[in-house]
Structures are given as structure tokens and as C-alpha cells.
């Protein structure tokens, strides 16, 4: 499959998705995903491609978004007149301006110094947003209305599907631009500076300048994401630029996988789904998210995408079917183990006398249910310990050319 085909398929999926899942809810989840994808990809320009760990990336998302809402308000009150389709660009421009200003002093150094400055700036901006009420609207935030302004081919964006297509179009454009950026000399140099700033300096590039360019671009795209957020939700509040939002984008990029262009996209999709769906089934969803995150950091340093990409060798060797049986054998006890653990966590948290889990009525107060769950989980764990080594062996075999020992590409 050529690169062009991938982009065409990507565009087609974006077009078709809301036709398949056409409820109000799924539309709004898709729109949320497009925002998260741009934001996470822009974050990866810093961390994945530029090696700059930021704890304050929400600043550019939020500032872009706030300016976008103010622009929407100006359209509403007829101080300005342009199409609402350009609002994300307003966000992008102001994200860029903010990044140009802050980047001018924060990108002197990478590493801890950069991380700490980003943390400090993030806290400062978030705190100021509560103090400077006339611009940020204090705790209530500022809100606008997207339906004013000249209609775009007769569309006034009152309906959610119009907003989705607008967001998807901007997302496609932004992802394409960010991808192309990685192919430019500036994008390549960002990688070089991340890996070895001294060498980059030796061949005549200023590491500081390269970081500054990446930083500014990341601010621009974060601002676009903020602008789309403004159009979709029609409100921006302090939470859009505080540390929690900055933390969430780090989580997305990291869980997805920093080393791959597509990694943050995967992370954004998975986290949006967890955020919007899991929270309906359990109020402990944040706990599970935390566990998932820690396990990812510990066992999948290359993220979920890394896990998929590990199978490339086996795929190319045409030996995936060797893994099929061991995977199934591990997945069944694995799933039982995880479900058992979840059941115990949920049961310890249950308030009612009866607790229904997967159609099973459990009694948190009695010992019977606990004994049952404990034994099931323990058995699953025991079986898991037996099947994992077999998976390891199968993995080694699947990744090795016939009669060519010692070629391993990582382990599960």
C-alpha cells in the first residue's frame, strides 16, 4: 500500500464514519477524537520528535482556544466578519504567537530545565487565567456561538455533523502538515538534535534554533486543536489550559507510542474512548487509566503502536500463524485474571448489598463471593505463568528465519 493510498483511505474513513455511527453521541465522540489527535500529534512534535518534555502544552491549546472564542464573539457582535470555518486558524495563529514568545526563552536548553520551565509557565498561565477575569472569564470561562457569521455554502454549523466535518477537514489538513513537517530538513534536524545536540551543532545547526522551530510549530497545531475545541464546545474554561490537560496529552502521546508518527493518533483514539465510554460503567475509571498508563510505561516503552509494530518481522516472514495459538492460550487466562482483579476492586468499592458483575450476582459482604473471585483469579494467574514461557518461545521462533538462529527483534 503506497503512502498516497493511506491518505486516501484516511480521508475516506473520516467521511464515512459518521454515516455508520450516526447518533448524536458518536458524532460528538468523533469530534472529540479529532481534537485529541491534533493535540497529541502536536505534543509529539515536542517530545517524540524534538526530545522536549513539556508539562505545559495545554497553554497553547488553551490560549488558541480562548482567542478563537473571542473571535467567535466578535463575529457574533459584528466587530469582525469572516466564516466560522476559519476559527481554528485563529486559534493556530495565537497558539503560534504564544509559542514564539515563550519559546524564545524556554528552548535555550532541553532536558530538565525545559521541562521545569514548561511546568512553571503552565502553572502561571493557569493561575493567571483565574485572576484575569475580563479575558478568561474566571471559573465560568468564556463562551460564544458558532452559528453567526457568513454561512459556508449555506451551512451555519448549528448541527453537530456539520461541526464534525469541519473538524475532520481541519484534522486531515493538520495531520498532513505535521507529517510533511517530519519530512522537511527542519523536522529531520529536530530528530538529530533530540538524539545528539552536540553533533547537530558540529554540522552547523543551532540546536536552540531547531528546538525553537519545533516548539513554535507545536504551539501552532495545539492552537488549531484549541480552535476546533472552541467551535465544537463553544466554551473555554480554565481547565483547558491547566496542568491536568497538559498531563492528559502526555498520557495520550505516551500510551500511543512516542517513536511513531501514528502513535499519538492511536493514543488519542484509545484515551478518548476510555474517557467517554469507560466512565459510564465505573466511577473508578481513572484508577484503571492510571494502571493502564503505568503498565504501558513499564512493559511497553514504545507504547501501543510499538506493540503492534513488534509484529512486523513476524508478519514479513509470514509466520504470524505460529503466534496464533500461544496468543489465544495466553489471552484467555489473561482476560480471566484481569476481569477477576477488576471484579475484586469494584466489589471492595460497592455500596449496595448485592453487586452484579458481568451478569453474575456477587455479595460484597459475604466471604463466598470473595473466595470465588480469589480462587478464579489465582487459577488464571497460575495458568498464565505456564503459558507465558510458551508464548516467549513461539515469539522467538516466529521472529527467526528458518535455520537462522539468533535474530530477535524484541520480546513481548
Amino acid at each position, binding site marked *: 500500500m503506497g503512502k498516497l493510498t493511506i491518505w486516501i483511505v484516511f480521508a475516506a474513513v473520516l467521511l464515512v464514519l459518521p454515516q*455508520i455511527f450516526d447518533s448524536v453521541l458518536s458524532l460528538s465522540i468523533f469530534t472529540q477524537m479529532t481534537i485529541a489527535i491534533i493535540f497529541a500529534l502536536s505534543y509529539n512534535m515536542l517530545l517524540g520528535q524534538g526530545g522536549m518534555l513539556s508539562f505545559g502544552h495545554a497553554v497553547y491549546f488553551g490560549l488558541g482556544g480562548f482567542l478563537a472564542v473571542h473571535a467567535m464573539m466578535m463575529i457574533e457582535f459584528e466587530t469582525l466578519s469572516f466564516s466560522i470555518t476559519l476559527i481554528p486558524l485563529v486559534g493556530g495563529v495565537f497558539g503560534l504567537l504564544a509559542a514564539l514568545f515563550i519559546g524564545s526563552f524556554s528552548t535555550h536548553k532541553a532536558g530538565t530545565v525545559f521541562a521545569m520551565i514548561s511546568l512553571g509557565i503552565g502553572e502561571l498561565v493557569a493561575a493567571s487565567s483565574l*485572576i484575569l477575569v475580563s479575558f478568561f472569564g474566571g471559573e*465560568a470561562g468564556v463562551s460564544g456561538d458558532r452559528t453567526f457569521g457568513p454561512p459556508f455554502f449555506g451551512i451555519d454549523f448549528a448541527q*453537530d455533523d456539520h461541526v464534525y466535518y469541519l473538524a475532520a477537514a481541519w484534522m486531515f489538513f493538520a495531520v498532513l502538515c505535521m507529517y510533511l513537517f517530519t519530512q522537511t530538513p527542519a523536522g529531520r534536524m529536530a530528530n538529530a538534535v533530540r538524539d545528539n545536540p552536540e553533533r547537530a551543532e558540529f554540522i552547523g545547526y543551532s540546536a536552540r534554533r531547531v528546538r525553537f522551530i519545533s516548539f513554535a510549530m507545536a504551539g501552532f497545531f495545539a492552537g488549531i486543536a484549541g480552535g476546533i475545541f472552541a467551535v465544537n464546545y463553544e466554551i473555554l474554561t480554565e481547565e483547558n489550559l491547566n496542568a491536568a490537560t497538559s498531563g492528559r496529552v502526555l498520557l495520550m502521546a505516551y500510551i500511543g507510542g512516542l517513536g511513531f508518527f501514528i502513535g499519538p493518533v492511536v493514543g488519542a483514539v484509545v484515551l478518548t474512548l476510555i474517557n467517554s465510554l469507560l*466512565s459510564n460503567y465505573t*466511577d473508578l475509571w481513572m484508577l484503571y487509566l492510571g494502571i493502564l498508563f503505568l503498565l504501558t510505561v513499564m512493559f511497553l516503552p514504545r507504547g501501543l503502536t510499538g506493540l503492534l509494530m513488534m509484529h512486523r518481522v513476524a508478519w514479513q516472514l509470514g509466520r504470524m500463524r505460529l503466534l496464533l495459538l500461544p496468543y489465544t492460550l495466553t489471552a484467555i487466562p489473561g482476560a480471566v485474571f484481569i476481569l477477576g482483579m477488576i471484579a475484586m476492586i469494584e466489589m471492595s468499592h460497592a*455500596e449496595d448489598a448485592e453487586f452484579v458483575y458481568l451478569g453474575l450476582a456477587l455479595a460484597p459482604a459475604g466471604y463466598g463471593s470473595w473466595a470465588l473471585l480469589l480462587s478464579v483469579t489465582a487459577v488464571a494467574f497460575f495458568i498464565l505463568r505456564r503459558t507465558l514461557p510458551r508464548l516467549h518461545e513461539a515469539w522467538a521462533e516466529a521472529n527467526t528465519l528458518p535455520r537462522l538462529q539468533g535474530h530477535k527483534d524484541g520480546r513481548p
Partner: protein
Amino acid sequence: MKLLPSAVPRLHLLAQIATAFSLAFSGLALAQEPIKIAFIDPQSGVFAATGESGFMVLDFAADYFYNDKGGVLGGRKFEVTALDNKSSAAESQLQLRRAISEGTQIVFSGNGSAVASALSTAIERHNRRNPDSQVLFINYAAVDPILTGADCNFWHFRFDAHSDMKMEVMTSHIAKNPAITKVYIIGQDYSFGKAVGDAAISMLAAKRPDIEIVGNELHPIGQVKDFTPYITKIVSSGANAVITGNWGADMVALGRGIMDAGLEVPIYTFYAAYDGITATLGEAGKDQIYVVHNDFANPVTAPLRLEFTAAYEAKNPHQDITQPRIVNALMMLATAIEKAGSAEPYDIAIAMEDMRITTMTGEELWMRRDDHQAFQNLNISVHTNEGINIDTDNSGFALRTEFVVPRDETITQSSCRMTRPQQ
């Protein structure tokens, strides 16, 4: 990739068949179809305790008063779903869309005026843009006056007294006490904290010009590690009463700080009870904390309220009925549905306007037509362990009502200019 073009119409066909079936059966099922209520409030995170207890009360009251007695409109039952808004304006909108896509037309919410204001705006816009799937907003706790003032709208009904009404009552109580001559105001640095400060100053000036405001301090919300420096200022100002709009951990820390410093002055507040706060203030805060609220506190004598509380606490031994006004809202909603003979938001809204119902405590609650603000008696209660018959947090302590302002005296001018939708 050949899969897609053929799969899409097939899926579509499936969906159409499903819709056709559901339409065919809907005529039969309409009488028994539940009336869905979405309870959009924090169910996770730091503020989850309030949201969870609110949901449990609403869910229990729906069963206790209606579903167990055959429902409303001849057999339709209330179905309450908690949707977690994570205390966020954007999440609330997502959950609103979820509720709408599940066919819900009634939304309860209230924790946090910022969230409520975002929801109110979002619902008004949604109803304007989608007249075929309208939503009614029952605000049971957000107290920013603007919600029934400048930002009021037809779909929003508030069942709590707004902060200016509460401040009227609070300042009246202070004005009656000649011992209070110097008042210190401290609040969280955001719209509500500022509104409390401004209202207190202007109302005290009108009622007791001799009272001196010896301090008007704002501190960052949720950021203060240690309130001692603030308390030093309060002590050195010579204040003999403190007014605060603080809630949550900021309220506990401020209250405990004042008590630790040995400052024995009354503290007038809005949110110094329930969800662990009563237990934490405990003995140290006895007879020192005054809370303004609607729905009479202790000692409870109304039989209906006692029965309901006993039934609720029998089912949830670790819970309290923290916000009886949720039950008030549900009662008025059910009455309006019966009166309108319909569960359509527009019909319910019209029916609720100018409606009067009797609450569990036996007092009358009135929904003003002009701004959709509910009025009932307002009370000032003190944190104590004496003379109470329903305690809070199983701590032996609770609020005991000291001072009741009759409903008609709490009525303030309406500043709402409501645009009514044409149906």
C-alpha cells in the same frame, strides 16, 4: 479495502430494519416507556462525593415516591441515570449529548455554577437548533444569581436559593446580633467568592451601617496549603464575625484554622456541612459555624421527611440526605407531568411556571414564572450535637435550625428577561 462500499449499505439496512421494528412496537410500548432523567454531575474525582450522594437521593426518591406506587401518567416510571461530568464544562456537554442520543429529555445538574451555566447555555442552544429533541434543565444546586438573572432561559429551573437571597438572610441574622460590630469577609478567588463578598458588603451597609468591614480577602481556590497566615490577619483585625463562601477542602481548612487559633467568633457560611465536613469540624466547631440553606434542618418533625430519611438510611447506612431540594425538584417535576398530561419538556416547563407544591417538610415551594426561581423558607442553622434528631456523617453532629425567614420575605426582584420559544 473492497470491504467498505458493500459493508456500509448493509449496516445501514440493518439499522433501518431495527428502526422500523422499534417504531412498530413503540405505539404499544408508549404507555410503559420510562421517563428518562439524566443526572449530570461529578461521579469521579475530588467532588465526586457530592455528586454521588445527590444521585443516590434522586434515584431513591424516584422509586420511593413514584415508581413503587405505579409511576406517573398512568404507569410511566422514572429512570435515573448518573452521567459523570468530571466537574468540567466540556464533559458536561459530552454527557448532555449522550443523554440526548439515549432519548433523555430531563437533565438534573447543580454542582458548580460554572458547569451549570455552561449546561444551561448548551441546552438553550440545543433546543433552539433541534426543536424535535428538546431538553429540560433542573438545576438543584448552582447558586450564581446570573442563572435566573441576566443569563436566564426558558428551559432552566432552579430549586436552590441563589447566593444573593442567601446573603440577605445571612446579613439579616448578623444585623440582629448587636455584639457583631466588625466583620471579616474571606472567599475563594473566583466569581462566586467575589459575589459573596460584594453582596455582604452592600447588604450589611444597608442593614447595619455601624458594622465595620475589617477585611475582604480573596484566596486562590483549592491552592492554599495552610490558612494560618489568613487567620492571623483575621485575628489582628479584631473581627467578631467571619463571612465566607468557601466550600470543600477550603472550607474545612479555614474552619479548622480559625478554631486552632482559638478565635471564638461565629463563622457564617453556605457549605459547611455533609460529605465528611461535619465529622471533621466535630466538637471544635460546635456552636460556631452558621449555615444558610433551604429545607429545614434539625430537629425534624415532619412525618413524611422522617419516614423518607429512615427508609433512605436503612438502605444506605453510610449516607445522608445531603440535599432535600433534589426531592423537591422531583416532586414538582412529577406534579407538572401529571398536570400537563405529557412528559414533553415544553409542556412540563409551562406547567411548572407559577406552580406551588408542598415539600416533605410541609412547607410551600413556589416556582416564579418570571425567572424560574423557586422560593421557600430559608434557614440559618448552627453546627451542634444538641437538639438534633438526624445526625450527619454518623458523627453525632448536624445542623440545628436557629432562625427561619418565611418564604415571602426571601423574594427578590427578578431581573430576568426571558424569551419564550413559540411551539
